[in-house]
């Protein structure tokens, strides 16, 4: 039946093929063309620079960059994986890598640099970066691309108006609350904008407090651990202050937009957004800066560090053209080009500065070192094989807590249950 359908659709295709070849771009890569799929428009230029550099060294290989938006990227990638038509090279995210790797969709890249050095990965990449690119079996399924941390972005003018010191490494959760109150009292603007988000929100607080989302071996959720519960109550409770907008506000206005239109003084932001925010809000340049995250009251530090990697389909396990390009992406040169584009901090250790130099084009300096410093105590972004299945359900439950239709204790217990069920289901 499938074969018949295929023939029929081929027939339908030929009906129009003549009319379309003139204007349509051919898609099946002719020899020497590698397609690379990514989801971030802001990094398109950086990826293009990599493609150009590689083409210069290997004139017979052309790399074509394709960008799509986040949601559709995963819908599409799954459909492509199912029908065995994955692009040659694509970005992989920690949310999904275990699902893809553990189901045999990705090529094992552990030995990619075997000819060069047996310890290439561990020599040049941090443990967090490598585990962000590994499957549950410990093998490496992606070439680490970048690494990131989450920092505290703040509005200097509002701090000046309230006559208080800018955030620094001495800050704790209590300072965060006090400063927010002072700014609200002095300017009527919002203080720290705490919204329902995991990576840019409560995850950081949970780990600072010594709690966890998933246990070490990823067999159970941690929402029944006292430290986690305490941090969640603190974080969710922030919205009950006058100086923090409620979740209804954030459903209509992204915190970044509220910040850059000078409605609020602070929010958590990932380093990968800083470059486009500098470019998109020129009138705000000089008015804001970044700092390390505050610690928990007893000094616990943490920031969530995620990292993407470049992967290829299991079918390309022995495709030397693709493998060579991947090797280039993970080389010092490839990582340097990426860093200099300013899009993200290279995963390659020792190249963090290249990302900072990309900001030399602007007239004033941000304290970008804050993002780099935090790698010392960064925590790997939460993931397990079943994360795609529980992610949206956990968000739904969290929103119920924010909306007040579930009390916080019941809600957290439900979240714990949702994750544990998903883990059991995927086993």
């Amino acid at each position, binding site marked *: 039946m499938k074969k018949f*359908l295929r023939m029929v659709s081929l027939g339908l295709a030929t009906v129009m093929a003549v009319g379309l070849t003139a204007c*349509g771009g051919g898609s099946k890569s002719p020899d020497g063309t590698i397609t690379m799929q990514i989801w971030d428009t802001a990094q398109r230029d950086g990826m293009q620079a990599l493609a150009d550099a590689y083409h210069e060294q290997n004139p017979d290989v052309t790399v074509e960059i394709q*960008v799509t*938006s986040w949601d*559709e990227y995963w819908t599409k990638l799954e459909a492509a994986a199912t*029908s065995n*038509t994955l692009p040659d090279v694509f970005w992989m995210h920690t949310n999904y890598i275990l699902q893809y790797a553990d189901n045999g969709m990705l090529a094992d890249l552990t030995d990619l640099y075997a000819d060069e050095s047996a310890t290439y990965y561990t020599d040049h990449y941090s443990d967090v970066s490598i585990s962000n690119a590994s499957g549950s079996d410990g093998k490496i399924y992606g070439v680490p691309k970048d690494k990131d941390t989450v920092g505290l972005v703040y509005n200097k003018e509002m701090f000046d108006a309230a006559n208080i010191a800018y955030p620094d490494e001495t800050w704790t959760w209590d300072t965060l609350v006090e400063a927010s109150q002072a700014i609200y009292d002095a300017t009527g603007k919002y203080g720290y904008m705490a919204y329902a988000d995991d990576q840019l929100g409560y995850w950081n607080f949970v780990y600072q407090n010594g709690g966890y989302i998933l246990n070490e071996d990823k067999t159970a959720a941690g929402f029944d651990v006292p430290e986690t519960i305490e941090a969640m109550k603190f974080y969710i409770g922030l919205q009950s202050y006058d100086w923090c907008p409620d979740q209804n506000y954030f459903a209509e206005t992204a915190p970044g*937009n509220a910040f850059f*239109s000078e409605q609020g003084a602070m929010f958590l932001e990932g380093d990968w957004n800083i470059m486009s925010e500098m470019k998109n809000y020129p009138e705000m340049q000089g008015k804001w800066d970044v700092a390390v995250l505050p610690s928990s009251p007893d000094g616990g530090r943490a920031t969530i560090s995620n990292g993407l990697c470049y992967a290829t389909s299991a079918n390309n396990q022995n495709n030397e053209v693709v493998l060579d390009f991947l090797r280039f992406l993970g080389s010092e040169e490839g990582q340097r080009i990426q860093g200099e584009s300013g899009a993200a901090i290279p995963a390659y250790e020792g190249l963090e500065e290249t990302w900072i130099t990309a900001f030399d084009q602007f007239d004033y300096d941000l304290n970008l070192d804050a993002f780099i410093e935090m790698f010392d105590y960064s925590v790997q972004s939460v993931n397990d094989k079943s994360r795609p299945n529980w992610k949206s359900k956990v968000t739904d439950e969290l929103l119920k807590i924010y909306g007040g239709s579930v009390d916080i204790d019941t809600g957290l217990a439900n979240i714990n249950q949702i994750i544990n069920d998903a883990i059991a289901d995927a086993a």
Partner: protein
Amino acid sequence: MNQEASLRRSRAIGKGLTYFFLITGSLIMIFPFVWMILTSLKTLSESMQIPPTILPAKPVFENFTYAVTSLPFVNLYINTIVLIFFRVLCAIAFSSMAGYAFAKLRFRGKGLLFGLVLVQMMMPSQIFIIPQYQMLASLSLTNTLFALVFPGLVSAFGTFFLRQSYLGIPNEIGEAAYLDGCNQWQTFTKVMAPLTGNSVAALTIFTAVFAYADLMWPLVVNTDINMMTLSSGLATLKGQFTTNYPVLMAGSLLAMIPMLILYLFFQKQFVEGIAMTGGK
């Protein structure tokens, strides 16, 4: 006599009320467009002032710059036009043939086959996306213009719609042509099809509007932003600028322009075209 005077007075009041409602309604219909233009000329900070300013304090055009640098508008215009052109072409060619056959020819299984056409109109289009994507992927045809057109190769709605208009043509016309020695194909192409010009124009416009509005399919089937259409490009812009409304409004305005021009050109057919579906 008295009664007539009061009737005339109530007619005058009725007239006044009619204009009142029409003008109020027009304002409601047009206001979002006005607000779109005004917002697109404000800075993000100004757009988020309380209370909102009506006119921009000082019109800025940067938002259009951001929109243009984020999206390859020229490609989007071309893709959208190509998409519309081929979907319309297919809908007209295949639906005319099928509509004619269903309306005028006798054959076994007609009821059942026409049932297939009708039931298709009840299905939500989301269920087609993944299977259709996989068909194209297995033919390595994603990221092409053909992929954009693919789901619209045939049109159940078009078939249903043109069948209605063939039903309206008296059978005698076809029979006369047949007696003149035309075969079925000639009767169809030379005699019957030309009589459905109005409906074909209407179908053109319907198909164009639906193709233009199609959001999910272009997003899923074509990853390359250069191969997207205006609607899906706008969704991408939203992914990038989240709730930065001045930029989103600027992008929306830029996306509207081609359709607006077409609309102003074809306004008459547009309106009459839609009127056709009301026929029995």
